[in-house]
């Protein structure tokens, strides 16, 4: 008999639902330190450099916010779909298409001026992401094609489309043959909201979107529909919610917000479109969504944590010579440990010898010791 075993909880533990991401982050730090020590680096210094130091540097905080904002936007959109068990893995492609659609507007209006240009770019960015997400939605609802595969594969198509446009039609004629577009004009660039910093309009926008999404998910029938579809698809049908409409809402929300993040990045930090535009935000946002418990407010916190791995990972490359892959390793470990600790929401750990007697107190608030012996009349 094993020393410990898992016993199903009678109800999911709310406390553990909040504790699991925290435990996952802690395990990531521990395993990361161990791993890099074994690889011959100073593991503790690596963890310190990536996860602690940036927090005490005000300049790094700006970086953090700039990196977090696209992650929060994309993850918020994805979480709406994930709630309904619609697995859009194509945010990266939708992000690229949003960026490209907005860039198209920018290139067409290079010689114009006016306050209307930027809003049109943003709207087109949203639409670009939606169109890209509509393809898997259509395939899913009409032909029953698994949206995980179709949305994922479209990411590669989107990137090839980007390369084609950069090297061909959209290449800056004055750009010394570099594969990139012309720089956007000031009317095509996101304004800085805090003068003298890097904090552009996209950052408050991301927070506003998370707050709005929180309201939508908790206070509207549409949000209710997404949750019912995810928890009990047959009950959703009974409630009169069409499965197809759920897929469409989920994919368009995910695609639209990924597209918005795309154009915000293009018209903000990049200020032009370049082949290096896709940086994996669309994939990292999946981790953000789960680390944030698919809750838009949690996603804001999770977005900052994952942004930390980017910001800290970059500086660790220069300061202690950590490979650039370290960022990815930490991100992947975080998702891995989160999925592993998630089992504690539904199960509790008990001693394998005499099942109900010894119960660790750590198994959250409502699982009180001895509860399993109680008689329900």
């Amino acid at each position, binding site marked *: 008999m094993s020393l410990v075993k898992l*016993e*199903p909880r*009678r*109800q*999911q533990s709310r406390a553990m639902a909040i504790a699991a991401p925290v435990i996952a982050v802690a395990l990531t730090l521990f395993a990361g330190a161990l791993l890099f020590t074994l690889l011959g680096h100073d593991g503790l210094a690596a963890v310190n450099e990536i996860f602690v130091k940036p927090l005490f540097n005000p300049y790094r905080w700006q970086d953090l916010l700039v990196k977090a904002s696209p992650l929060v936007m994309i993850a918020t959109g994805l979480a709406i779909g994930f709630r309904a068990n619609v697995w859009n893995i194509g945010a990266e492609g939708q992000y690229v298409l949003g960026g490209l659609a907005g860039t198209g507007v920018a290139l067409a209006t290079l010689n114009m001026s006016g306050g209307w240009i930027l809003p049109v770019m943003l709207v087109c960015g949203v639409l670009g992401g939606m169109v890209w997400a509509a393809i898997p939605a259509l395939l899913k609802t009409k032909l029953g094609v698994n949206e995980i595969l179709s949305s994922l594969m479209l990411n590669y198509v989107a990137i090839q489309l980007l390369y084609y446009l950069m090297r061909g039609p959209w290449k800056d004629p004055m750009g010394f043959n570099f594969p990139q577009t012309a720089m956007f004009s000031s009317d095509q660039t996101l304004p800085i909201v805090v003068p003298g910093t890097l904090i552009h309009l996209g950052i408050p926008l991301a927070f506003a979107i998370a707050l709005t999404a929180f309201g939508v998910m908790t*206070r*509207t*029938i*549409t949000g*209710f529909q997404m*949750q*019912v579809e995810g*928890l*009990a698809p*047959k*009950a959703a*049908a*009974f*409630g*009169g919610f*069409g499965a197809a409409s759920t897929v469409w809402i989920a994919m368009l929300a995910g695609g639209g917000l990924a597209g918005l993040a795309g154009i915000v990045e293009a018209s903000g930090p990049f200020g032009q479109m370049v082949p290096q535009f896709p940086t994996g935000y669309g994939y990292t946002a999946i981790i953000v969504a789960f680390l944030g418990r698919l809750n838009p407010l949690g996603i804001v916190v999770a977005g900052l944590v994952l942004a930390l791995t980017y910001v800290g990972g970059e500086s660790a490359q220069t300061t202690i010579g950590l490979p650039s892959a370290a960022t990815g390793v930490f991100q992947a470990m975080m998702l891995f440990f989160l999925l592993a600790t998630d089992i504690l929401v539904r199960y509790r750990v008990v001693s394998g010898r005499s099942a*109900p007697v010894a119960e660790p107190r750590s198994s959250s608030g409502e699982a009180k010791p001895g*509860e*399993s*012996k*109680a*008689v*329900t*009349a």
Partner: protein
Amino acid sequence: MAAKAAQVPRLALKDISKRFPGVVANDRVSFAVPAGAIHALLGENGAGKSTLVKIIYGVQAADDGQIVFDGQPVRIGSPREARALGIGMVFQHFSLFEAMTVLENIALGMDNPPPRRELEARVRAVLESYGLALDPHRHVHTLSVGERQRIEIVRALLQNPSLLIMDEPTSVLTPQEVEQLFTTLRRLADEGCSILYISHKLHEIKALCQSATIMRGGKVVASCDPRDESARSMAELMIGGSLKDLSDKTDCTYGEARFVVNALSAPGEPPFGTSLKDVSFSVRSGEIFGIAGVAGNGQNELLAVLSGERQAGVSGSLTLDGEELVHASVGARRRAGLASAPEERNGHAAVPGMTLAENALLSARNRMGLSSGGLIRSRAAKNYAAKVIEAFSVKATGPGAAAGSLSGGNLQKYVMGREIMQNPSVLVVSQPTWGVDAGAAGFIRQAMIDLVAKGACVVVVSQDLDELLELCDRLAVINEGRLSEPMDVKGISIERVGLLMGGIHGASPEGDAPIRPAAKAFAAEISA
């Protein structure tokens, strides 16, 4: 009796206890089954009967207590050990491979199957000596539920059991099949095999058993001789209270037909779904219309088509007060006054992980104004849930309780209350009292009677024929997706209903569905 009591009992249980997290399923259960007796184990759902028999059959281990078999204390660690002792069991849910033949299925279920030829000879001998009609070479997917059960019985009998456990064996059988089963069981008992018969159908137990142990809440609360008790007195022992009578709906006046279904057809869900073929019936105001039938004959499909959850490929007409609804969405049907409650509570009629207030939104949001302009009116939802909880005496901590935390009966009361309190013109409901304790079942039936008294109409789909006979004014039988002519319940012939359930429609329009041998036997019996 005195002589029998002096004998060593076949099976004696002493202080058997079994705990699960949060529940004590069996609390010091003791009773004995004499040799050659048919002993009933009675109790409501959740009383601990199934756990107890799983312990006897070695599927689960008891925490405490002792099992004595033929005078010897035994430890039964697995079903294999149970079979070696001479304990056979027929489960409520069969474990059969549809694509294999009867014989192959029997061989698969045996610990040491003999060579095929020898096995076939033994199977045929068992079939013959107990008068069971079954062709060993037929594929299981072509068999009726009653015939499938016979495979399980033959499987058990081949081991020459001295104790046979039957878990709710009649819940899927037609009345004729039940009678046949009883004949077999009586013969077995005459030959000295003890039978532990688990059921909550009281008239069956009165007809079959010589002794009964009644369980409630994991404990033995009484033992009795069912032949000396009335069904009512046993029911009261089972629920531990007194039963309420349903109010009589004698000669209430029916209005005109409100809910008319005409030539409704729909394809079945592949691969094994039953398609609906030309279903027609109409229900008058003030009427409860029953649809009887053995499970899997298109009941779920019919309910999904009536509620609007299934739309693809549906043809025919469905009108409520003259309004055509066959292509209307679920929401539009609800607004028109068509409410429904599917068979499965958890995950279909209600979301277990959501609160009762949120579950109120599921089907009552439009009719009861629980949302406006796409926004949830949380307070209204809470109030409506509270009203349902109160009016239907749902045992719950309040509108904030998770639906999954309620017992089956209480959740069913909540679901039925949620639909009925919307004051629908027609309520379509499947298995309204399935897995519900007797008290709640009575309450739910009364609520439906009260609803039709206000001029609404109700369609009840149920496998429980007794329930339909008690509740309905007229009923029809569904078999392989086809609905029979409706019959008045008053003066109805149970034999006729049973034959219809078994698939005799007078003529079988499709060549591939011949009259089943079992049904043929019944037909012969009745005409004799």
